[in-house]
C-alpha cells in the first residue's frame, strides 16, 4: 500500500487556477507529480459527467479548481460549479465513492503557493484513502 501512487485529475479554469498552477511552476513550488491538470475555460464547464469519467478512467481523486467566488472571469461560472458540486458529492457516495475523493476549491492566478498546498493536501488525502475500487471493475494494477 505504501507504494501506491494515486492518480489525481485536477480540472482547472483557464483564468485563475490554471494560471495559479503556472505561477507555482514559475516559483518552482514542487508538488506530487500524481496531480495532473486538465484545462477548461471555466469551473462552470465541469460537467459532472467529466468528473465521473475521470474516476472511470482510473483517477483516485478529482479536483475542480476555479476562481475565487466573486472573481469568476465569466461572472458566475464558479457559483454554478459550487451548486453542482454539492449534488455530485452526494451522487458519488451512492456510487460507493468516498466524497473526499472529490474536492472543489479556488485558486487565484497569483496563488502559486495555494495551488501547491491544495495539490499536496489532495494527493495526501487520496493516498490515505488508497486506490479507488469501483464496484464491478477489476482493481487497476498498481505499478
Amino acid at each position: 500500500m505504501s507504494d501506491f501512487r494515486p492518480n489525481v485529475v485536477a480540472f482547472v479554469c483557464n483564468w485563475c487556477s490554471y494560471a495559479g498552477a503556472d505561477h507555482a511552476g514559475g516559483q518552482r513550488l514542487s508538488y506530487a507529480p500524481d496531480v495532473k491538470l486538465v484545462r477548461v475555460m471555466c469551473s462552470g464547464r465541469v460537467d459532472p459527467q467529466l468528473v465521473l469519467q475521470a474516476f472511470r478512467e482510473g483517477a483516485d481523486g478529482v479536483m475542480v479548481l476555479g476562481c475565487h467566488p466573486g472573481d469568476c472571469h465569466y461572472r458566475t461560472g464558479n457559483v454554478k460549479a459550487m451548486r453542482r458540486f454539492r449534488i455530485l458529492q452526494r451522487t458519488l457516495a451512492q456510487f460507493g465513492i468516498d466524497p473526499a475523493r472529490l474536492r472543489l476549491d479556488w485558486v487565484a492566478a497569483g496563488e502559486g503557493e495555494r495551488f501547491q498546498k491544495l495539490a499536496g493536501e489532495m494527493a495526501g488525502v487520496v493516498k490515505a484513502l488508497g486506490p479507488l475500487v469501483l464496484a464491478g471493475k477489476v482493481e487497476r494494477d498498481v505499478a
Partner: protein
Amino acid sequence: MGTNKTAVFLCNCGPNIAECMDLDAIGAWAAGIEDVAAVFRHNLLCSPDGKAYFRQSLAQRQPENVVVAACSPKMHERTFQEPAEATGINMGRVQMANIREHCGWVTPDRAEATAKAKALVHAAICRCRRSEALTRRSTKVNTDVVVIGGGIAGIEAAMTAAKAGRRVTIVEKEIALGGRVIKTEELAPPMQCAPCPLAARLSALKETPNITVIANAEVTDVLGFFGNFTVRIRRRARAVKDNCIGCEICFEVCPVEVKTRFHLGPGTHKAIYTLFPGSVPAAAAIDKGACRHFTDGTCDACVKVCPLASIDFDEQDEQTEVQAGAIIVATGSADGDVSHLPELGWGVVDNVYTLPEFERIASSSGPYHGEIQLRDGRRPASVAVVHCAGSRRDDGIRYCSRVCCMAALKVGDLVRKKVPEAKVYNIHDTLVLGTPREALMHARQRCSGTSFLRCPDLTSIRVSRNGDRIRVVGEGLRPLDVDMVVLATGIKPPPAAGELAERLYVDLDQDGFFAPGDCLLHATSTSLDGIYVAGCAAAPSDVATAVTQGQAAAGDAVIRLAPGREIELEVMTCVIDEHRCAGCRLCISVCPYKAISFDRQKKVSVINEAVCRGCGTCAATCASGAAKAKHFTDGQIMAEIGGLMHV
C-alpha cells in the same frame, strides 16, 4: 479513431525543460505512438529560429494536428497557432502540453518528471483525435454611446460624444433632463447661477441631431461587451405624445393639483405637468395616479384645449433596443434621509428643511419664486445650518459626502441676498474645505455675517419647537433660538443603483456607489470594460467633478470606439445542436451573459454567438448533450482524461 497525422514538437526551452526530464526518451516513446507522424525537437521553439523551424517542419509534413510540448499555453498558445495557420493548419488543431510550469518546474525527480510529461503529451495527442477547426470572427465596433442618466454628468458625456460625431442615446428616469443641478439655485464656491449654463446646454443638446433622449424610461437589460452592447429600454407611457411643445395651455384647464416632487415638498403642479418651463424633452406628462381621466374617467379638459392633439390616454409602455459600443452610467444620487432621526426636527417641527429642500425654496424658479420665507409667510430673522445631518453615523450615511459643507456655506449667501439683516449660524464639526477656493468661500462667509459654532458631537444636536421659534441644542453649544433650520444632509446612492449594477454586471462599492475599475488610471471605468461611470453615481461629487468625469468617460469611449476598428469575437463560443435540444431551457437559466434565447417556433434554445463568451456552463448543464463548448467539447476533454490516465 487514430489519424496517424499528429506532429509532436518537443521544446528544450534552453535548459528549463531539458534539464528537468529525459526529452530523448519522451521523443522516442512519442514516435512509437500510432497517431504520431513525426517528432520534432528544438532548443527554443518560441525564438525566431524556432518558429521558422516550426513553420518549415509543418509545411513539409502537412500533419493534421500539432502538439507542442513546451511551456504554458497562456504564454505561447498564440505563438504557435499563428505560424500553424500560415501553413494551413487550423488553430483548433494546435494543442499544447504544458511540460514546463506543470511538470518540469514542479517535479524535482527527473524520472517522475519524465513520466508525468509523457502523460501530459499523451493526453494532448489523444485530445487531437477529437480536434475540430475553429473559425476566427471579428466585428466592427459599434461607435454609438448610451448614457444612463441625464444630469449634468450625463449631459456632458452625451455632448462630448456627440461633438465627436457619435450617435448618443440618453436614458433618463425622470420626464426631463437636468438632474440635481437644475434644482439648484447657485453653485458654491463661485456662487454662480446653476441652471443658467445648464439651460444653455440643454437647448444646445435639443438641437444636436445625433442625440436621442428617451425620458421617463429605464434600462431593463444589457447584453454584450465593449464595442458590442445591446441595451433594452422601457419607456413608461406619459399619455402625452412627443409632438407636445410644452405650451402649458392645458395646465390652466387641468382641475387637479398634485404636490410636486420637483420642489421636494412645498408647491404643487397640475396632473398634467412639466418639471420646469423649457425642459428637454419639452413634452408634458400626465400623472396617472392623479389625473381624473385615469382615476374616475370624468375629465378630458386637456384634450379639448391641446392645440397639437398631443394627449394620448391610451399610450402604452414601450420597449426599445439600442445597440452601442459603450455605456456611461451617470445615474446621480439620492438625498440623504433624516426621517428616522426625529430629534433633528425634520417632519416634526415647522420650518426645518433639508438642504435640497432649502435649495428649492431659495430657487428663483421654486415654489416661492426665490423669496426666503417661513411657512406663515414671514421672513426669517435667523437661520441655523446643521452640518453632517444624518451623516457620519452608523444609523445614517456612514461616510462624509464631501460636498455638503460647501452647499451648507451657500445658505448664508442665499439668505442674506433676500434678507440682508438675517443672522446665519453654521453648526459644524469638521469642515471639508478641499481647495483654496473653498477655503476662501469659508473665510468670506465668516466676514459677511455667518457665525460658525463648533459642536464636537453632531449626533447630540436636538431640534425642537420653542414657542414660535426653533431651539437647537447640542454638546458645547449655548441653546440657540432661530426661525429656520437647514439640515445639511449628505448624498447616497440612488435606490435603483443595485438593480442597475446587476443588469450591467458591474460592481458597487461598500456604500453602494458604482465601484471604479482602477481608480488611479481609469477614473471613470467600472469593473466591466466598456461601461463607464461619471458624477455622483461613482461617489458624492461636486459639479466640476461630475462635468470632468462625464467628459472624460465620453472622451475615452470615443477614442477607443474608433470607426472601422475591428474587435475580435470569441472563437471558442458555445453552440446548441437544435436536433438534440429538448427545449428544457436550463441553459438559459445558467448563462451568465444572457446569450441564450428560446426559439418558440422550433422550441429549442439558440445561442447568440456575438454575446457568448464561451465559458461552457451551458454545455456542463445541458442534459441532452445539445450544448457544445467549442474547443472544449465533452469528447475532447474525455479524450484528454483518457490520455492522461492510460499512458
